[in-house]
């Protein structure tokens, strides 16, 4: 079975429909599935619910789908650095479910692992706990959080072999790992596809069972939000 598709549009063919739920990897602009986001924008799929830690920044990453009004609801932990997101949220055009970052990661991990809910201390006594079951374990309060299952996961990896076994690079792994497991179908874009046997089986981050379709998205521009450096002190 060939998992490698010629481009993002081909890889998403038959998977997109209005009103669907998508889990998207990435943290800020680091490790975002930008080719797949572009293809969803081009397809014009509407009323999307997207679980993603951030929503990109203005007109970058998922910010593009906000700009084109394709998103009905975001499930996110952080929306700073994105004026259009803030504007649509404050004006009521965009529904936002604020979810603590670790709870979001675990909701997707759990969903992908067949766990429909779990208890966590995160958010106890805050707005996040409103309407949620509270249970006491060993004298401490926990709230029930639901696992997330999505129709589609879109992720960005570094290298994959032809069978879909995939590795990430540095902090570009972030949410790509849990998001990959939460979708009924996961489409991955990578920088390079290599022959089976060329990646060490002990060093695979995401087993190929999770990756149903993939594309090579290179070359990537890889934008940086805050370029911080230090001076080289000359001897």
């Amino acid at each position, binding site marked *: 079975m060939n998992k490698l598709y010629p481009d993002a549009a081909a890889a998403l063919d038959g998977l997109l429909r209005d009103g669907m739920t998508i889990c998207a990897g990435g*943290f*800020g*602009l*680091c*490790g975002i599935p930008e080719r797949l986001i572009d293809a969803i924008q081009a397809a014009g799929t509407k009323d999307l619910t997207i679980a993603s*830690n951030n929503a990109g920044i203005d007109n970058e990453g998922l910010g593009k789908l906000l700009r084109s009004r394709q998103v009905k609801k975001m499930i*996110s*932990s*952080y*929306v*700073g*650095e994105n004026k259009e997101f*803030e504007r649509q*949220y*404050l004006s009521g055009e965009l529904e936002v479910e*604020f979810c*603590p*970052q*670790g*709870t*979001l*990661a*675990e909701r*997707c*991990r759990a969903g992908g692992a067949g766990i429909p809910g779990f208890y*966590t*201390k*995160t*958010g*106890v*006594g*805050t*707005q*996040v706990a409103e309407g949620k079951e509270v249970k006491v374990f060993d004298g401490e309060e926990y709230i029930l959080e639901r696992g997330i299952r999505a129709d589609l996961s879109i992720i960005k990896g*570094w290298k994959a072999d032809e069978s879909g076994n995939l590795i*990430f*690079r*540095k*902090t*570009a*792994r*972030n*949410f*790509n*790992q*849990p998001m990959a497991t939460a979708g009924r179908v996961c489409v991955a874009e990578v920088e390079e596809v290599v022959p089976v046997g060329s990646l060490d089986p002990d060093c695979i*981050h995401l087993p190929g069972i999770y990756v149903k379709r993939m594309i090579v998205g290179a070359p990537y521009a*890889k*934008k*940086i*939000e*805050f*370029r*911080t*450096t*230090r001076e*080289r002190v000359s001897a």
Partner: protein
Amino acid sequence: MAWDRNQMAARAAKELRDGYYVNLGIGIPTLVANNIPAGMTVTLQSENGMLGIGPFPYDDEVDPDLINAGKQTISELPQSVYFGSEQSFAMIRGGHIDLTVLGAMEVAENGDIANWMIPGKMIKGMGGAMDLVAGVKKIIVVMEHTSKNGDPKFLKSCSLPLTGKNVVDMVVTDLAVFQRPDHESPFRLIELAPGVTADEVAAKTTAAYEVAL
């Protein structure tokens, strides 16, 4: 004279211990990294999936795939390790991180903290702050003692939506340090910035606390 941002960070850094795994928030807390005592091994965690944060990179070593939770470019150390967000928060929620230093808009006398939104005005989201205050062993807040308008930030109770309930162990401001031994005890004023008086602190604080100078 009140402490400046770096001096506040240096004061918080005095709470570090050899072997600690530490998560630093954005802003003044980040400066704690510059104040790790020589000879002490402290491993910094970045909640986007890294243990062993190195210094900012040299200009020609900037890597877009290597950032901290504030989305700044950083570098790695020989002992650095990367992981996914689910693993990152498993170590936070699971109580494996020894200490976190966070900023705050408000802290209350009962240890409540608010630092993620101002209704109708500012909405950034909680990011990983709710997970950190729920899971990390010791929570230090570093913040200016009063707001830009001069209003107290260490209060009887928080007016803003909470990030966590009864979670703060220590508050370091530009004027003073407050600490409590456990989450049932009141905060104690344990230290003043040079030249700052206990009366001045009292005048700028609405939280109840004991004085233990």
